[in-house]
């Protein structure tokens, strides 16, 4: 019983968390970033600076 309820909670938690992620994506896009921030220069690190770290593009900090 306890184990079955726990499995049920895992399913509920998965759905709730997935919905939360979707909601976050909606809210985060209320203010949209400029186009260059949407496609960070991950393929061509380009010039680096100390703030960005070795190999990181200047300015745009990549994708999380």
């Amino acid at each position, binding site marked *: 019983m306890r184990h079955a309820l726990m*499995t049920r909670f895992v399913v509920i938690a998965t759905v709730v968390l997935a919905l939360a992620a979707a909601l976050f994506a909606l809210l985060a896009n209320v203010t949209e970033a*400029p186009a260059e921030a949407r496609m960070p220069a991950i*393929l061509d690190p380009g010039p680096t600076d100390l703030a960005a*770290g070795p*190999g*990181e593009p200047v300015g745009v*900090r990549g*994708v999380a």
Partner: protein
Amino acid sequence: VTNVVRGLLWSVVYLAAVIAPLFFMLVGDAPPGRGWWMELSIALGFIGLAMVGLQFAVTARFHPVDAPYGLDAVLQYHRQISLVAFGFILLHPAILMVEDPERLALLNPATATTAARWGLASVVLLIAIVVTSVWRAQLKLNYEVWRILHGLLAIGIVITALVHVERVGYYVSGPWRRGLWIVMSLVLVGLLGYVRLYKPWRLLRTPYVIDGVEQLPGDTWRVHLRPDGHEGLRFSPGQFAWLTVGNSPFQIEEHPFSFSSSAERPQRLSFTIKELGDFTSRIGELEPGTRAYLDGPYGAFSYERNQGSGFVFLAGGIGISPIMSQLRTLADREDPRAMLLFYANPDLDDVALREELDRLEVRLDLEVVSVLEDPPDDWDGEAGLIGPELLDRYLPAHEELLQFFVCGPDPMMDAVEEALLDRGIPPGHVNLERFDFI
């Protein structure tokens, strides 16, 4: 009802603890969004990271958290939700790469940014922890090695992921968000300190001494412990504790065992242990007088919190251990209720506690049904497995009013649970103890 309310409360707290940091990042001067799919990917990554971080809390054995569910069910949650977190975290880079296939280059450490390298390292460690946990037996990893590896990999996953987030830097700017990440990191360090330092330090005040080790039939041993300078541990019959043998409680090696002694006798605790692994195969070598420590009690597999007009116990092999504790306690308390015990074993040599069960049949209103999968020719008990036909023959009328306790190997428990539910036994009356933690 109290346990149900507490259980619901902790479930809500868990979900809030995972979700709240995510939305906290949108408070104040939030950075602008970068498209729905990218932000979804990032949200899944953050949620996955929060879930992994919270695993340190889920497995920290906090009594208030474990009590409503039972630690065995909490650890089952730990295993299942880990796979969900694993899926969320894998979706994070997967969505980015599907959205723009050029991002597949993120998988190449030589061309990816530092941030991506840390993220990749975290994912590699995550894959390693899932593989070594799900397939531990197939990989022939012994429990002690696995446990150390599991802890190190878990810490590695969180550290590399936090560095990944910090290097990307998109949602960690500003004092509020930076403060949040510092607090979350400190909570994780605090949890590690609680589990590895504070809890063992508290155990120093309640040491035990091995009082005797008896060999029983079927590669089974009974270990007796007595408290050394304190009153002993109060537990509910059917619960279990984590046993550490040696002079220091600050050890990685500890093992969960069910009490098999009566809860009415805390001055002499007993565990009935079958030789199943590296540690248990050395149980017979324990010397009387050796120091030991107990972290517990844990578990919800007890008649004390599941009262009925009578009890039916169904034990498979060493699953008899927590049931023996309940029967001994019921006998010490002179409980008049009717009880039925199905005790299943592969063959006669595996039956560990027959003589004591005979004595308990005299002290209690108890009927013991011995079941052997492979009985000898002169066997007068039941043969085969515990199934619907056997239950038909022995269960009394109004069986739905009884409480059922099932403990044994997983396949046996699955089959018995299904058979009981098919008979119309209310799910709340079917109590299972799954002691196969990993």
